[in-house]
């Protein structure tokens, strides 16, 4: 018997883990048999504030020979949930998605669902009736079976089980151990015959109670329809590996701010079909990046046409690049033309929604379509460009070793000019040449090319957001008021966001909404520089007039005016997952004020300087005065965008200090 290395590894793991005592690794639940004692969960420990608790969730996937000459997947699941309070009634609404490719669809069988209640010491049953199961065609690939458990009460136990038959071998059901409710026992068993190999992907912070594997001999009967004759029946035997994972006492997943997606942290296992391995026939389905890349470059909805001659582009491109001499100039012109002419339909996808020619004809498509067209146009002009496949931050991390294409949802373009690499995204109207959006800064991404599909990395830590704000205030000639000017040069991300915002409102409205100014603070001459010149940061500026409360003996003035942090961005005191901010920052604020006529400085805030974990960040607040002026400067630097949960409280304290410091006031006293 020939084994792959991986199978050996499983076997070893099994031998090792079989020394485990078996007593504690069996599910504590017998489905379909509920006794009054089962309603008492007091012997278990789980979050006492939970609204429902999953007592057991047990799944099993295996293969069987089908009547179409091939194999099917059989997934069985049984789940018991105890509803603790009315707030947990949502646990009684169940939705089971089924995949359909238009001709064949997954089948749901043997659905049984029962609600158990304890009434006067007796267990009562309410069964779900067939009529209360609804089928909703969600879209062309997904059908959802839904039902709501009958007779649901506080304290009810609900149990349901079903079998899902699937002809889609790529859809070996994943298993999520951790969910909305705490779970006492979650178990998944998968038996895979040697003819199929899958890559197993596990993630999460929760430990396994059992993680075992076991090899057995199996035999499958496969029937092929024989047309007018009898079916062709064959029996295939071989070894199969059964893997079993168990987790116990799993806490519910928690949403936190500054998290790209909890999908990155939830405990789960997933599978990717990688190979058919029959004695006389084998085929790599998914193996390595060079192969995946080669495949993508043949796909007409991805790379098939991006390196071709594409003569149909000749005329348009000639016009577009007219007058450009250098490669960089040409690339810029092509980028701008695609950027301005094509409209993005914005459905994140790793593939084009049409073929290249149709995208060109429609003057629009999804992000992938626009950026692949851009790639094709650059190549047409002999400027070397490749597509880059990535996953946006909200979509979760991608895998560096395995080409798990399902995890990618976005395509940008990489172009090499004079040994410098530029990353382009022509799908977002307000992005300049050479810049990609913050959503793309999600770690590993992959250049797709026939020759060299190498990884590239976009880390939020490398995205620097630099902002400089300057305020200058002088006395008005006639006295009683101050005149000032405000200038703020925004960072790239903020400039982008501002441009997006202004495109949806007028500039005038933007200034109206900017801050709730009071009537003693009047803004004039407001404007935004470089609003349409995307390659330089936008600058917001205005003049203002501040009417002094001249009757007051003492005037208090916060030199931050409308700027600065009014509230700590890190609200919660505790943290489970890493803090993932979109970028690192460097914010400088400069304040220069002529001391108001008739007043003298009574007191200034104290200068201060603090640092965050040594070199990870710093904040300084420097203030001084001379005869006639007050000068102040603050600078906040965060050199990292991602912080581990252990660093959270330090980060929170750091911002608490900033918030307080930036709220401090200058005290001015009337001269005698």
């Amino acid at each position, binding site marked *: 018997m020939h084994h792959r290395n991986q199978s050996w590894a499983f076997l070893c793991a099994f031998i090792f883990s079989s020394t485990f005592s078996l007593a504690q690794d069996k599910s504590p639940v017998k489905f379909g048999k509920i006794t009054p004692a089962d309603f008492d969960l007091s012997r278990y420990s789980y979050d006492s504030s939970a609204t429902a608790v999953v007592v057991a969730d047990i799944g099993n996937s295996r293969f069987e020979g089908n009547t179409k000459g091939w194999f099917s997947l059989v997934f069985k699941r049984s789940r018991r949930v105890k509803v603790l309070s009315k*707030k947990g009634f949502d646990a009684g609404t169940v939705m089971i998605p089924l995949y359909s490719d238009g001709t064949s669809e997954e089948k749901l069988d043997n659905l049984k669902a029962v609600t158990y209640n304890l009434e006067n010491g007796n267990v009562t049953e309410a069964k779900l009736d067939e009529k209360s199961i609804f089928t909703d065609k969600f879209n062309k690939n997904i059908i959802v079976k839904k039902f709501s458990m009958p007779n649901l009460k506080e304290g009810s136990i609900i149990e349901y089980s079903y079998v899902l038959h699937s002809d889609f071998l790529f859809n070996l059901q994943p298993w999520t151990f951790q969910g909305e409710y705490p779970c006492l026992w979650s178990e998944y068993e998968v038996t895979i015959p040697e003819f199929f190999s899958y890559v197993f992907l596990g993630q999460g912070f929760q430990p396994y109670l059992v993680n075992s594997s076991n090899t057995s001999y199996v035999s499958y009967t496969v029937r092929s329809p024989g047309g007018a004759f009898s079916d062709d029946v064959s029996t295939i035997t071989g070894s199969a590996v059964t893997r079993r994972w168990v987790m116990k006492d799993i806490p519910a997943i928690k949403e936190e701010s500054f998290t790209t997606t909890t999908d990155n942290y939830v405990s789960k296992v997933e599978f990717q079909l990688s190979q058919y391995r029959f004695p006389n026939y084998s085929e790599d389905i998914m193996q390595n990046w060079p192969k995946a890349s080669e495949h993508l470059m043949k796909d007409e909805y991805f790379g098939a046409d991006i390196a071709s001659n594409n003569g149909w582009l000749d005329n348009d491109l000639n016009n577009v690049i007219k007058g450009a001499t250098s490669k960089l100039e040409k690339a810029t012109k092509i980028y701008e033309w695609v950027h301005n002419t094509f409209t993005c339909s914005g459905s994140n996808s790793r593939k084009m929604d049409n073929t290249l020619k149709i995208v060109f004809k429609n003057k629009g498509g999804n992000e992938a379509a626009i950026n692949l067209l851009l790639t094709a146009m650059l190549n047409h002009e002999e400027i070397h460009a490749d597509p880059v496949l990535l996953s946006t931050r909200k979509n979760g991390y991608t895998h560096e070793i395995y080409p798990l294409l399902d995890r990618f949802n976005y395509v940008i373009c990489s172009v090499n000019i004079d040994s410098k690499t530029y990353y382009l995204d022509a799908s977002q109207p307000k992005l300049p040449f050479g810049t990609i959006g913050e959503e793309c800064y999600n770690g590993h991404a992959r250049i797709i090319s026939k020759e060299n599909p190498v990884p590239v990395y976009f880390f939020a830590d490398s995205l620097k957001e630099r902002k400089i704000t300057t305020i200058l205030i002088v006395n008005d000639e006639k006295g009683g008021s101050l005149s000032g000017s405000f200038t703020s040069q925004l960072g790239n991300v903020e400039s982008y966001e501002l441009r997006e915002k202004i495109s949806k409102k007028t500039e005038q409205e933007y200034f109206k909404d900017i801050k*709730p100014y009071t009537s003693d603070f009047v803004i004039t001459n407001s404007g935004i520089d470089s609003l349409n010149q995307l390659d330089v940061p936008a600058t917001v500026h205005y003049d203002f007039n501040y009417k002094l409360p001249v009757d007051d003996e003492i005037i208090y003035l916060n030199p931050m005016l409308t700027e600065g942090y009014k*509230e700590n961005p890190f609200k919660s005191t505790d943290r489970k997952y890493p803090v993932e901010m979109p970028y690192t920052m460097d914010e400088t604020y400069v304040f220069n004020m002529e001391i108001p006529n008739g007043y003298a400085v009574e007191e200034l805030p104290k200068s201060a300087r603090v640092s965050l974990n040594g070199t990870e960040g710093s904040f300084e607040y420097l203030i001084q005065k001379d005869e006639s002026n007050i000068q102040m400067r603050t600078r906040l630097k965060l050199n990292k965008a991602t912080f581990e949960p252990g660093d959270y409280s330090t980060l929170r304290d750091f911002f608490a200090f900033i918030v307080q410091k930036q709220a401090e006031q200058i005290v001015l006293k009337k001269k005698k």
Partner: protein
Amino acid sequence: MKKHSFFFLMIIPAFGLGQSFSVSGIPDTLTKGANAVVRIHEVIFEIKSPGKAVEHEHFAYTILNEDADFLAKYDSYYGSFISINYAYGTLYDAMGKQVKKIKLRDMGDFSVNDGFSLMNSERVKRYDFYNRIYPYTVDYEEEDEINGLMDIGEWMPRSMYNASVVSSRFVVIAPRDYKVRYKPVNCSIEPIVTEEKDKRIYTWEAKNLPAQKKEPMAPPLEETMPYVIIAPSDFEVQGYKGNMNSWENYGRFMYQLVHGRDLLPDNTRKKVHEITDTISDRRRKVLALYRFLQATTHYVGIQLGIGGWQPFDATYVATKNYGDCKALSNYMIALLKEAGINGKYVEIRAGKDELKMVEDFPSFQSNHVTCAVPMDKDTIWLECTDQAKAAGYAGSFTGNRKGVVIDETGGHIVKTPVYTAKDNLQCRHITGRVSDDGNLDFMVKSTYHAEKQDELSLSINELSRDKVMERLKTELNLPTYDVTKFNYQEEKDGIPIIDETLEINAPRYAQVSGKRLFISPNIMTRSTQHLNLDSGRKADIELHDDYTEKDTVDLVVPSGYQPEAIPAEASLDTKFGKYFASYKVSPEKIEFIRFREQHAGRFSASAYGDMSSYFEKIYRADRGKIVLVRKE
């Protein structure tokens, strides 16, 4: 000739009439202040019989900028009563040149997720050209077959802000002997009525209406813009016949759908008697049964076909213990009936700040069903979809509006309870201590009455304690803080009250600048209302909420300080409301008192400046700071 023009109207789409969608044809008066121009909006609604109609809708919008892109999206609902015969969409560029044309099969097809139903039978066709080269024009045309005529529609030529209208038409074609009912609202526009053989044609039309600017706090369009509501007289839905000429008739139809669906299984009937037989007081019987309903059932929305109007029967709810608003209200009435009490099925337009119903025009206007129990002197309102609501309390969900009672006598209008500024009371008392490094430790005891507790009640009744804590720890308006303890107590006899106690630590709450300490004594109740000054205000101003807020704050301050600056007392008594804030500062402590009484109401545009200044004064007073100086 006449016959000709009729067919002409029906078959040939607008661009066939020689209309060009070139943008240059739009007069300046219609592009001013507009994000979009409605080039044409035409509905031709032909009633074939009381149960059948064909609706032809055609509209073309010129989108001038990104703000109006949403209008270019197509959404067409269909399902049990509506099937789509055909639909087209065409995209034109600024010159009026056709760029793209699509058909029904090019549109996406989705099930409708209304956000609260487990299942409904409605589906939607969706399309978006995703064009971003401005200006552009989208032109959509659709014909629907309608089976079941509950509704005809509304002709509201200016149904959006910042959009002008070149032409808007609504045509109803009906058999000569069929009565088409309509009512002009905010206007007195009458249709042009013509006759063609055995048909009568009603046409409403408007042309060249300039765009109207959207202004903050304006009343809803339905209360200011001219429009016409159009409804059937005789109608038929899935074999059920009805007539809407009066609320009585409307009610009779609805009663057909409800009637006889109140049979309870024996064990439930037994349960009703167990609960009520020992109680003599009728009111207490009602409350006990409502508590039973709340304890044993919950909301699951299932809207399939006629089930959009007809409740699942009482036995269904009794065995499944769930249902939608109709089914649960019907079940509640069945429980009451078993106890010899008459409960009423009431259709209503529910939701905070929902549009008022048009009382004198019987038509299908509700989105919800609730239950009312008439008593000798008053009425007990029972919201059957809410497991936590106080019996008799309608709140902002169904309060202060009209509903339609459906019973054996037909339908009639009833009024739901009104909650005044006195009822919607929030009282807050804070005791705390400020240390010389600016740290603030405090305890806050708040009581929220009536509508002031509506949102909080949902949150504490629907979220786990853990989630409530998470919210408290992240959603309070303080610079940096931590909630160390919290407690809620609900009183549900009569108008509901929630008592809340929080213990909070707010490090660096007060600012230390050298020898000075700056403290804002109004820690928790700060108004964020703000109206930007605007000289050209056109629309009336509408304030939605009636409420009273009372605050007292006692803060112990570190010793060795003396007050340097204390904000002036604020006292406002305006037609918009009353406000008062005052401070008492001694070397040991700060006392702060705040009072605000706010009334809902409609004010003319000329009051805008005064209102803006009223809000600003409150905004400032709420943020007043006391300055203490360390004694040398």
